[in-house]
């Protein structure tokens, strides 16, 4: 197990290198120059600009620049934000916990919806419950998160006036009240993201359970007198979850899409909204770093999915 983990961690290096290569190529192909502002500023003499370019290594060949960029990324030196005037690493570390918190809760909510609904629907295929839940799931993943977010704000914040629609990181209350306020403001972003994820996952769970429930060993389990509960939970669900994990892992890059949008709608101070503000402010180092962080998160979550896979299916040997 630990050897497998080590091997997987080592595989992550070429993957991350590949991703960083893609990102760096994009940056190099892009027109424009980080020193464009200096170039148009008449107060900066050309020789100073040339010196600066030389000092920052902008005149070196592209492979050299890539290697330098990648090694400094690995060392944790992510550059300096043009706008905020602080280290990009610090900036991202400030924002990352909020994003992970909202994403984690949303994923949890998605699972809490998808598992029971998907299983129950598949155990009674073509029943009323199945039809209603399948239709709702279809609607759920056809509703783009930005529209659900707007509808939630309209209904819960404006019409009912129950929930705040701006997420604040600096709640002044203390004690229980602090927790309560934090929970209250997290409800809508988490619900928007979680229900969307849940809708897609419900479909996966339903179809996976439907495949398993017809197999002979389930009949055997029933025939030998196991209760329905044990049959479904221990025999069906555990096997059905294996393909579900794969599908959920494939969806991971998409989760971040939802995260960026949700953070933007509810002004959650996570890295998604930081990405948008950086793009609007032309803050290239931050943009590059956040895109890279998102890619790293995808890779890490894929690893988690793989480990989960092995736990669910002991037939898969860690070699």
């Amino acid at each position, binding site marked *: 197990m630990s050897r497998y983990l080590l091997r997987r961690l080592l595989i992550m290096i070429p*993957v991350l290198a590949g*991703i960083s290569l*893609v*990102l760096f190529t*994009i*940056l190099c192909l*892009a*027109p*424009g120059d980080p020193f464009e502002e200096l170039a148009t500023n008449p107060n900066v003499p050309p020789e100073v600009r040339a010196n600066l370019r030389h000092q920052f290594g902008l005149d070196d060949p592209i492979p050299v620049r890539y290697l330098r960029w990648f090694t400094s990324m690995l060392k944790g030196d992510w550059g300096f934000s043009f706008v905020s005037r602080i280290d990009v690493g610090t900036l991202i570390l400030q924002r990352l916990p909020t994003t992970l918190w909202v994403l984690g809760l949303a994923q949890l909510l998605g699972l809490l919806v998808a598992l029971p609904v998907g299983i129950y629907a598949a155990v009674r*295929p073509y029943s009323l419950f199945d039809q209603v839940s399948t239709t709702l799931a*279809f*609607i759920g*993943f*056809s*509703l*783009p*998160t*930005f*529209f659900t977010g*707007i*509808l939630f*704000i*309209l209904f819960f914040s*404006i019409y009912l006036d129950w929930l705040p629609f701006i997420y604040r990181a600096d709640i002044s209350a203390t004690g229980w009240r602090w927790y309560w306020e934090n929970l209250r403001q997290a409800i809508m972003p988490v619900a928007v993201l979680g229900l969307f994820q849940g809708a897609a996952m419900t*479909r*996966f769970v339903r*179809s*996976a359970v*439907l*495949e398993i429930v017809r197999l002979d060993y389930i009949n055997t389990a029933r025939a030998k007198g196991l209760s329905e509960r044990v049959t479904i939970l221990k025999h069906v669900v555990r096997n059905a979850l294996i*393909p579900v994990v*794969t*599908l959920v892992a*494939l*969806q991971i*890059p*998409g*989760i*971040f*899409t*939802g995260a*960026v*949008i949700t953070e*933007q*709608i509810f002004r959650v101070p996570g890295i998604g909204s930081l*990405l*948008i503000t950086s*793009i*609007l402010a*032309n803050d290239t180092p931050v*943009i*590059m770093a*956040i*895109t890279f962080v*998102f*890619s790293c*998160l*995808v*890779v890490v979550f*894929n690893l988690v999915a793989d480990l989960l896979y092995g736990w669910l299916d002991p037939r898969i040997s860690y070699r």
Partner: protein
Amino acid sequence: MTPPTGVAAEAVTRTAPASRAPAVRSLWSEAFRRFRKHHLATFGAVVLLVMVAAVMVGPFVYRVPIDEIDFRAKLKGPTWAHPLGTDDLGQDLLARMLYGGRISLAVGVAAMLIAITVGTVVGAAAGHVGGTTDHTLMRLTDLFLSLPQLPLLLLLVYLFRDSLKRVLGPEMGVFALVVVVIGGLRWMPVARLVRAQFLSLREKEFVEAARGLGAPPLRQVIRHILPNAVGPVIVAGTIDVAAAIIAESSLSFLGLGFPPDIPTWGRILFDAKDNLDFAPHWAIFPGTAIFLTVLSINYIGDGLRDALDPRKVMSSRTPTPDGGAAAVGAPDA
């Protein structure tokens, strides 16, 4: 596989798709019959056709300019003069939505075409050539699959937008960029599907027969293998249209897609979202348009999957495990 009726025995050798059903015509009409049985898919097709007709013909019938500013009528709800209300400059929302809908739908279709073209070429190359090519292409596919789509989309738009605008003009520039980038980030599922199809099809007898008759590789691929692999690609392509529409709307919703004078549905939502408390109609109409389009396309995809999946030809009432196709591309916004 349907048991071919006796009459069509020769047809099987002549036309490639006929390996699934008696003859070309009846294959498609058979598929159409199965599609119509899926009531929600039929309904989706009708809704989508109405939408497409509305954005194609609408601007010629409903001749209100999209940029006529009228401050006396600003932020009005639906009235007879403005059926869907007006925005903060008093511009007519129906006219804007009809115009913007063209672009939203065009982006979806164009990005889908790019995605399935690239995907088919990559998948066909990997599946047919095999060996190192296959390995390299599949690693590339895996790499692209682990790229976070929206952040990368934002990065690309941020870096290339201005220069493309200079070359192609504001509308075409953004359109080309958005379409190429969305399409270029969505070909991977198609490539995997096509490769899987090729791996199984290239060992089938009819391909072997073609090889034995001396068909060059390109002819084997185009004439014999591809037509048989087209079903799943159509389904994936349908869902890609929905995904591309969502991607474009997301981009515009973040204020980074089309400029304000090109009111795609996502862009209207972006402008509307700060006025929710006093002009909810402004956000609800374009949002509903996106939702209805995506929903109908997804249902059409579902129906096409039932209609084109050869495994379902025999009995259309078997439970439909839709996991495989969901992996193809549930839209991810």
